[in-house]
């Protein structure tokens, strides 16, 4: 038996009319592409959610409830009074997560306290032996703490948004992220999220030392000044801004000491 001859016979058969439709392939392929793009966007959203969730560490027994922290009432969106930089360690969060991260990523400079947000931020060191750049750490009393590395600012970059909070997760999402949590802990986590969410959405990031002001411009034209702590270590400052629930930023305006615009970050 000659295999090539056998397949030649198949190859020389007359083909019946085809039902293959190139237009249908284009339509179906286009739909697959759109679904994949939507899936990628959902992954990005999930990553943002993960940042939010890392803040929501499980309450430790014997610690005070996060609700007990003095939180100022929401800053009016129309306020033009900048929340002054306060690069000093005031009353620090009492969460175990904050202490743990402070120990793991010791501050290169001072811990910036921004009670008006409220948030504590610092630039930490990876480790004594590591040559990696600094990490940006943030903590909220009762809201947990998080640290993350970041690429250096580009030549034309004066500031960058490194993190933002998202809306509250539902019970199912919280359970998926904390599979070992008890029902009571889950309830507390969800309540904490809802409390955090009523405070609004927080954007935070890094800035060069020459940056003296960052203002969030909302889609309806309002301006919200950010709090900045200059020279938080490694030649960088940190900043944060809180927007009320339901308000979306159109851009962040980065200005120098003279009020000159250094950079405009679209979308925040």
């Amino acid at each position, binding site marked *: 038996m000659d295999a090539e001859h056998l397949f030649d016979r198949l*190859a020389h058969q007359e083909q019946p009319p085809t039902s293959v439709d190139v237009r249908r392939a284009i339509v179906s*392929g286009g739909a697959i592409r759109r679904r994949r793009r939507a899936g990628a966007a959902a992954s990005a959203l999930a990553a943002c959610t993960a940042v939010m969730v890392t803040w929501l560490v499980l309450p430790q027994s014997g610690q005070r409830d996060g609700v007990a922290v003095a939180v100022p009432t929401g800053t009016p969106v129309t306020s033009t009074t900048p929340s002054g930089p306060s690069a000093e360690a005031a009353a620090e969060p009492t969460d175990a997560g904050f202490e743990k991260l402070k120990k793991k990523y010791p501050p290169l400079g001072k811990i910036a306290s921004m009670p008006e947000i409220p948030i504590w931020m610092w630039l930490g060191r990876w480790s004594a032996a590591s040559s990696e750049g600094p990490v940006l750490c943030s903590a909220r009393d009762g809201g947990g703490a998080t640290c993350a590395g970041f690429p250096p600012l580009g030549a034309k970059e004066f500031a960058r948004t490194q993190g933002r909070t998202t809306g509250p997760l539902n019970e199912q999402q919280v359970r998926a992220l904390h599979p070992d949590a008890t029902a009571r802990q889950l309830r507390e986590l969800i309540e904490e999220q809802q409390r955090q969410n009523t405070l609004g959405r927080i954007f935070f990031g890094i800035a060069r030392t020459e940056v003296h002001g960052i203002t969030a411009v909302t889609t309806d034209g309002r301006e919200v000044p950010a709090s900045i702590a200059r020279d938080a270590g490694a030649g960088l400052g940190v900043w944060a801004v809180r927007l009320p629930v339901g308000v979306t930023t159109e851009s962040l305006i980065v200005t120098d000491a003279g009020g000159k615009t250094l950079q405009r970050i679209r979308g925040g």
Partner: protein
Amino acid sequence: MSLDEEYTAYVSGRLTWLRRIAYPLCQDWHRADDLVQTAITRLYVKWRQARVADDLDAYVRVILVRVFLAEQRGGWFSRVRPTPTLPQSSFEGNDRDTAMDLHRALTAVPPRQRVTLVLRFHCDLSVEQTARALGCSTGTVKSQTARGLATLRSILGAQDAHLAHKEEC
């Protein structure tokens, strides 16, 4: 020429060729059309990368083979579609019996071995090219080819003997 036009021009010119590869894999023109339809849909999704490939035909052939193998793993119910008409046969007269024997023999060859045989003897690929297309070693291609051919020989040989015996009676 836009990307879509480029894609349409390429696929339109390769439909016959793709069906000729798909048919020995599944021995059914309707299913071959389904395989080709799925393969060209996947090609459209990856068209930006595919169009700059060194050998676009080889790229598409690999997609087709993978579609076939993936479908084989999907189960019988996902491959069989009842149709109101009988499959159209393009063989006439004495060739019809031979064709049925060939189909039966090929169907008996396991899918992976069948793909190897099709790539080696129908697409005239070398052992190395087949190994690249299937993502396996050349040794695997050789062993799969040998086993596939052995299966074909055993079935076709048995049928020949059976036919001979009937003729003697």
